[in-house]
């Protein structure tokens, strides 16, 4: 492992000079962050377009020739996988993690900048491999993002030759990339904090990213093992996951394996993965609410504990995805109990967000709007989780549109709203300009209301029992005619929401040149990233000497202080203590 220890010498702040080392082969965490975000956005757009295709088929069946059963399943699979792994995980950890960790803890860079750079290039490679799987013979895999064997590697599933192999290779490369990045994030938070920055003075954003990264480092190996084993089954003809079966009229050579073993491995990764995209979101939202309500986050310590407890518990709930998978049903008791225990720290987080608003001085800025929309959406998604976690209630609902509605609310829309809010919030730091307000508001209202209209009614389709991952509902008598009308309406909402994202993308580029100029701390926030000597921060972040931290990140509206915020770098005044 090659690394530089951070020694605070002036030399360090002389950045790389050529264009190539500055913007392409850069080891600067801010550049790498933006590379991550750009790549994630690009591949995320593909996933968005795929969701339109799916909605075309569901809303207006038999109208579009280019969508057949095979391609529909390919869209479902690629959409799900890209959104969860290549967009959200990469955006939160590779993007925000990279940008914010060194700035917020007061470091000059990540502790292993070279490894950090490699991490991005491996990520890019994994994205390219993934994207190329659309173009190989047979096309991308259509096994569902869960990739359950045996069907993922057997004829009868689209892309069961090259598609699945490329998917597995891409995931393996992604995991390598993530591990390289993750080592950085964790060690930087643990060891590169500047003077005075104790763990308990960290903003919650860092706590969320930090715990999520540790979870990723421990959970991704499960996917890695499962992926390699499946690759063996596919390429070498082993039978890790495949029992004796006949397929398409032929007895296959396989025998003795267990499909359930893969499901356990997958969900041992998959459930923590849900929280890997949720926890950074939790952290960021806490900070957005606090800054824009001009109030300290309510119950900081409980928020930290909740993050840690959720992180730990999420390793012992995985089989709630397998209640009707055919595993020993007695496990249902255990996993239902652990799952509903997680509801408690999660609920406390929601209460604390709302209680932070209470007695605040709420500025309805764009980041605040997104944060409010997040809380609202997350409450819906979290509550529907109580249906699915409660094992017997899950029975009729599992694999229906209720599940689709639930996970889109809780791990699709909610984290995406945080991503947007965070971009509006930190954009002035990264570019020196504000994003355009009008476009921002259009984007916000359409996205917030639109996604709610898309996913809220879907719960009710789930109550009917309408199954998910269905190419067609043709000829199913138990589905009322009206449900098809509803599906068409949902599809239209989905197109409108998609179009609003184009406004956002345009705004992103337009504002770089045309946005209103912002000073170094336009939101008047306390945390360290707003205290850099230059905006945007230059290589080395802090100029000649590292900053010193004197207080936590939430000194807003202190009694007896005229300004309604006191940055972390301001020393404690005489007698300030007595006021608390």
């Amino acid at each position, binding site marked *: 492992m090659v690394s530089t220890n951070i020694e605070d010498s002036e030399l360090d702040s002389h950045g790389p000079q050529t264009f190539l080392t500055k913007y392409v082969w850069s080891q600067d965490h801010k550049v790498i962050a933006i590379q991550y975000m750009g790549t994630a956005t690009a591949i995320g757009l593909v996933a968005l377009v795929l969701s339109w295709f799916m909605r075309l088929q569901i809303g207006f069946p038999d109208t579009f020739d280019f969508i057949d059963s*095979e391609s529909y*399943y390919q869209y479902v699979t690629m959409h799900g996988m890209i959104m969860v792994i290549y967009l959200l995980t990469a955006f939160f950890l590779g993007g925000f993690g990279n940008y914010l960790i060194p700035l917020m803890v007061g470091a000059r860079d990540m502790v292993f900048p070279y490894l950090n750079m490699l991490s991005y290039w491996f990520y890019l490679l994994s994205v390219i491999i993934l994207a190329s799987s659309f173009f190989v013979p047979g096309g991308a895999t*259509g096994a*569902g993002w*869960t990739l359950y064997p045996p*069907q993922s590697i*057997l004829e*009868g*599933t689209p892309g069961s030759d090259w598609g699945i192999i490329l998917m597995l290779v891409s995931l393996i490369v992604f995991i390598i990339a993530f591990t390289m990045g993750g080592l950085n994030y964790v060690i930087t938070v643990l060891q590169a904090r500047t003077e005075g920055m104790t763990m308990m003075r960290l903003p919650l954003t860092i706590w969320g990213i930090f715990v999520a990264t540790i979870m990723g480092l421990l959970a991704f190996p499960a996917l890695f093992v499962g992926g390699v084993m499946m690759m063996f089954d596919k390429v070498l003809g082993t039978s890790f996951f495949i*029992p*004796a*079966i*006949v*397929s398409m009229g032929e*007895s296959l050579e396989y025998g*003795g394996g267990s*499909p*359930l073993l893969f499901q356990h491995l997958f969900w041992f990764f998959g459930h923590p993965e849900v929280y890997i995209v949720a926890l950074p979101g939790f952290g960021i939202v806490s900070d957005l609410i606090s800054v824009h309500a001009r*109030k300290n986050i309510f*119950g900081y310590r*409980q928020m930290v504990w909740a993050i840690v407890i959720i992180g730990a518990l999420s390793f012992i709930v995985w089989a709630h995805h397998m209640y009707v998978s*055919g595993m020993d*049903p007695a496990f*249902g*008791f255990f996993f*239902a*109990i652990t799952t*509903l225990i997680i509801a408690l720290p999660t609920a*406390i987080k*929601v*209460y*604390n967000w*709302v209680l932070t608003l*209470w007695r605040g001085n*709420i500025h309805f800025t764009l980041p605040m709007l997104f944060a409010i*929309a997040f809380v609202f959406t997350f*409450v819906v998604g979290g509550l*529907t989780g109580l*249906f699915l976690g*409660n*094992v*017997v209630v899950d*029975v*009729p*609902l599992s*694999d229906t549109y209720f599940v689709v509605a639930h996970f889109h609310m809780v791990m699709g829309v909610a984290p995406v709203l945080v991503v947007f809010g965070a971009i509006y919030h930190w954009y002035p730091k990264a570019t020196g300009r504000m994003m355009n307000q009008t476009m921002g508001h259009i984007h916000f209202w359409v996205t917030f209301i639109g996604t709610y209209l898309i996913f*809220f009614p879907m719960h009710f389709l789930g*109550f*009917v029992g309408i*199954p998910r991952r*269905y190419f*067609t509902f043709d000829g*199913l*008598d*138990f589905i009322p005619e*009206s*449900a098809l009308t509803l599906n068409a309406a949902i599809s239209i909402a989905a197109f409108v929401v998609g179009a609003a994202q184009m406004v956002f993308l345009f705004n992103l580029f337009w504002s770089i040149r045309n946005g209103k100029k912002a000073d170094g701390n336009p939101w008047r926030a306390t945390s360290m990233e707003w205290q850099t000597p230059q905006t945007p921060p230059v290589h080395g972040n802090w100029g000649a000497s590292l900053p010193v931290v004197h207080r936590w990140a939430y000194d807003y*509206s202190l009694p007896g202080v005229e300004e*309604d915020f006191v940055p972390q770098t301001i020393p404690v005044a005489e007698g300030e203590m007595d006021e*608390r």
Partner: protein
Amino acid sequence: MIIIVIIVLLVIFSVVFSFVSPWTYVPIAADWSEIDLLLTATLWITGAVFVAVSLFMAYALYKYRQSAGNRADFEPENKRLELILAVATSVGVIAMLAPGLVVWNKYITVPDDAKIVEAVGQQWSWAFRLPGEDGEFGLVSTHDIYETPFGVSASDPAGSDDIIIDDNELHLLLGQPVKMVLRSIDVLHNFYVPQFRAKMDLVPGIVTYFWITPTRTGTFEIICAELCGVGHSQMRGYVVVDEKKEYNEWLAEQETYAKLVANERNDNVEYAQNSE
């Protein structure tokens, strides 16, 4: 400010939608009304929490919006409040979970008087088997599926009276508890009849089960609820719940394994004679 109005409107929309929505559970046809009850109860409880939290948030947004003289409080934490909220939440969660676990226990405990019926899935169709008079299934081997009907082993005497239904329609007797024994010969599937509420995956290599008691006659669709390849959404079957008389009529028409084997042999003999 608009956000407050919108949140209130979305709450109203959600509540109204829940009441007027024509999309709700299909009429139940099995003895799992407890599940419906729990589902409805959970909907009420979570619905109430949703309305309370959202409206409280809207109120907070309204009351503490930015204004000239307004200044936020400094309030790091309030242990008592957090404790009260945590306890209240725990009570709510336990209230939902405890009955859930009781019903789950019932779901996985098959009553002694349940008759067994086997459903076998393959890409992308269903077939069924009844144990016949001896109440026992004969052994099967997946690899023999193309050798003998259903892959039932010829050497196991328990198999000869098994009734093989190589058709996508299964009949069940009204009021008779059945244990559905599930097998797959290729990939994962899931046996799901929305009216029965119950479902379970079919997993190649192992045998899974669930049980129901049909409570209403009629014809219900069996759908597959686990992605199983391109034909997943076309993998349909039917369950017909009959009164005793119709059920027996249907049963009389079905053929046993021994009969099928005999027929096949005759066919082969005929075929051999014809081609001579």
